[in-house]
């Protein structure tokens, strides 16, 4: 069996949640494999040590050039050291989407993006499951991995695996030429709005099902009755009904509430990707097939425009 590598994202000295999810995904490819974690950055000894608590081998690739994970630079560095025909696992986030497809071309291996499950490998065929049309249908996708593969794994769908401790191998010397035509300049922080939803304990989150800007009023009323803050999904921000700082999702804020109430939100993974910390999720949606019901703890099949005012009324009566 080919070697499996997992690219580890980290920030502020902590491993990203995706790290152990990738480990879990790797074990579905080959339960017996020793997964090698790849950690890039500058001054990453602590992170590497943390990674080594779960991964048998951790490649430390430490360089000033990698202080920010610029996909082009990372790709060049990896190409200089990865063996041929290997598996590389990446999270399907804004970095993985930037790196994965191009990396597979340069490695001449297969690419499968946004994998939600892995059924295993038979011969040279990797069997994966993906979703299409916002999760309305799933597909079995088979992939010829004779020359290896780059697999982007959807964050949040694999239960984090328990790994075995291992050791850090310093590969910094093998970086080679990483001059790039794309240069990172800076991160422009999103403007903080009137509420910081990343600190909210209870969130009432509203999506497309609200239909009309004016109907937002009822959501704010419910939130007020509950003592919650209001957040939303992307379409609401795209329509400019609420400010960007209220948007939950991979392209918005990452929130860690105790209770998350999703009103008229279909529950795309881009949205749920922003909901962390395993909150108690209540979903209210009139479409019984909405994917949100798969991730929610409790669901109500109802039109929020009718349900929410009644709920607010009852809560006010308490």
């Amino acid at each position, binding site marked *: 069996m080919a070697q499996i590598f997992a690219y580890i994202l980290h920030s502020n000295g902590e491993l990203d949640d995706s790290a152990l999810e990738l480990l879990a995904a790797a074990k579905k490819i080959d339960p017996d494999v020793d997964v090698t974690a790849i950690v890039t950055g500058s001054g990453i000894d602590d992170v590497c040590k943390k990674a080594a608590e779960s991964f048998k081998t951790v490649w430390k690739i430490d360089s000033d050039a990698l202080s920010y994970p*610029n*996909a*082009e630079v990372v790709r060049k560095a990896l190409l200089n050291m990865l063996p041929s025909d290997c598996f590389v696992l990446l999270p399907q986030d*804004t970095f993985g*989407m*930037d790196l994965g*497809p*191009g990396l*597979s*071309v*340069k490695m001449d291996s*297969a*690419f499968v*993006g*946004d994998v939600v499950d892995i059924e295993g490998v038979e011969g040279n065929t990797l069997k994966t499951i*993906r979703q*299409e*049309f*916002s999760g*309305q249908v*799933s597909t*079995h*996708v*088979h992939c010829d991995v004779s020359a290896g593969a780059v697999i982007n794994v959807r964050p949040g769908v694999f239960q984090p695996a328990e790994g075995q401790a291992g050791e850090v191998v310093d590969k910094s010397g093998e970086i080679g030429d990483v001059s790039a*035509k*794309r*240069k990172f*300049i800076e*991160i*422009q922080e*999103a403007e903080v709005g009137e509420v910081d939803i990343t600190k909210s304990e209870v969130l009432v989150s509203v999506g497309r099902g609200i239909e009309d800007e004016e109907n937002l009023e009822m959501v704010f009323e419910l939130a007020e009755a*509950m*003592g*919650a803050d209001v957040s939303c999904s992307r379409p609401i921000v795209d329509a400019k009904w609420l400010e960007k*700082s209220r*948007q939950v999702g*991979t*392209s918005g*804020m*990452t929130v860690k509430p*105790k*209770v998350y109430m999703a009103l008229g939100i279909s529950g795309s993974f881009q949205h749920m990707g922003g909901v962390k910390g395993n909150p*108690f999720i*209540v*979903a209210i949606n009139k479409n019984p*097939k909405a994917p949100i*019901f*798969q*991730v929610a*703890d*409790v*669901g*109500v*099949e*109802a039109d929020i425009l009718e*349900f929410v005012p*009644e*709920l607010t009324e*009852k*809560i006010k009566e308490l």
Partner: protein
Amino acid sequence: MEILVCVKRVPDTAENEIELNAEGNDIERDDLVYSVNEWDNYAVEEAIQMVDKHGGSVTVVTVGDEESEEVLRREMAMGAEKGILLSDDAFEGSDGKGVAAILKAAVEKGSYDLIMTGAQADEGYAQVGGMLAAMLDYPYASLVNSIEVGDGKLKVGREVEGGNIEMNEIELPCVLSIQTGINEPRYVGIRGIRKVASVEIPAMGASDLGIDAGSVGEDAAKVRRIDYFVPEMGEGAEMLEGSTDEIIDKLIELLKSKGGIK
């Protein structure tokens, strides 16, 4: 600036449930209508705005059958000057790399400063842009939501986690995949499409592009969709049943116990 935008014809599924066909090997396509992939449309609008400001022209290209011509016409009605249809029986069943290889050949037939794609499609892998860039050895940025034109380079913003924007400088020529919301695409009515109805759209096949037919298409595809199926339901949420009042009472109890009502 000469800009090539890669577009794709996709089922328009916004308001309709996707259902499986009787055989279960495909979605029910009879009742579907098709349109240009939303992300691609933003890319074309962005390209047109850049050309309006800095000069040059926009070309739209797609890999697909004859029916895909309609999306090229639609985008030309928006303001793209030329359309190219890459169509060949040999292209059918291509995986992402196959499509990228076909597009690469088309890019090399022209002379473009900038290639754009949509960041993703509802039925896609969000892969072609990155693959095309790697094949061309062009720099690449995905999920772009702002572009500023500089001298021989661009300043692009990428939409990253936390609602933040990652600013990059990228040398031309390059490939960018465009995120929705970067602009407000203009409306295209029937009249606009009729105006470009008679514009010739050249179709190019494998031989025109100099592609070895065996290197693309179904046989060359390493990644194959085997079937469609409806994901298992029910393992998720506990659905509250009963009259609205009963549901609300149950819900309030649950919310209270979980600290959802302060």
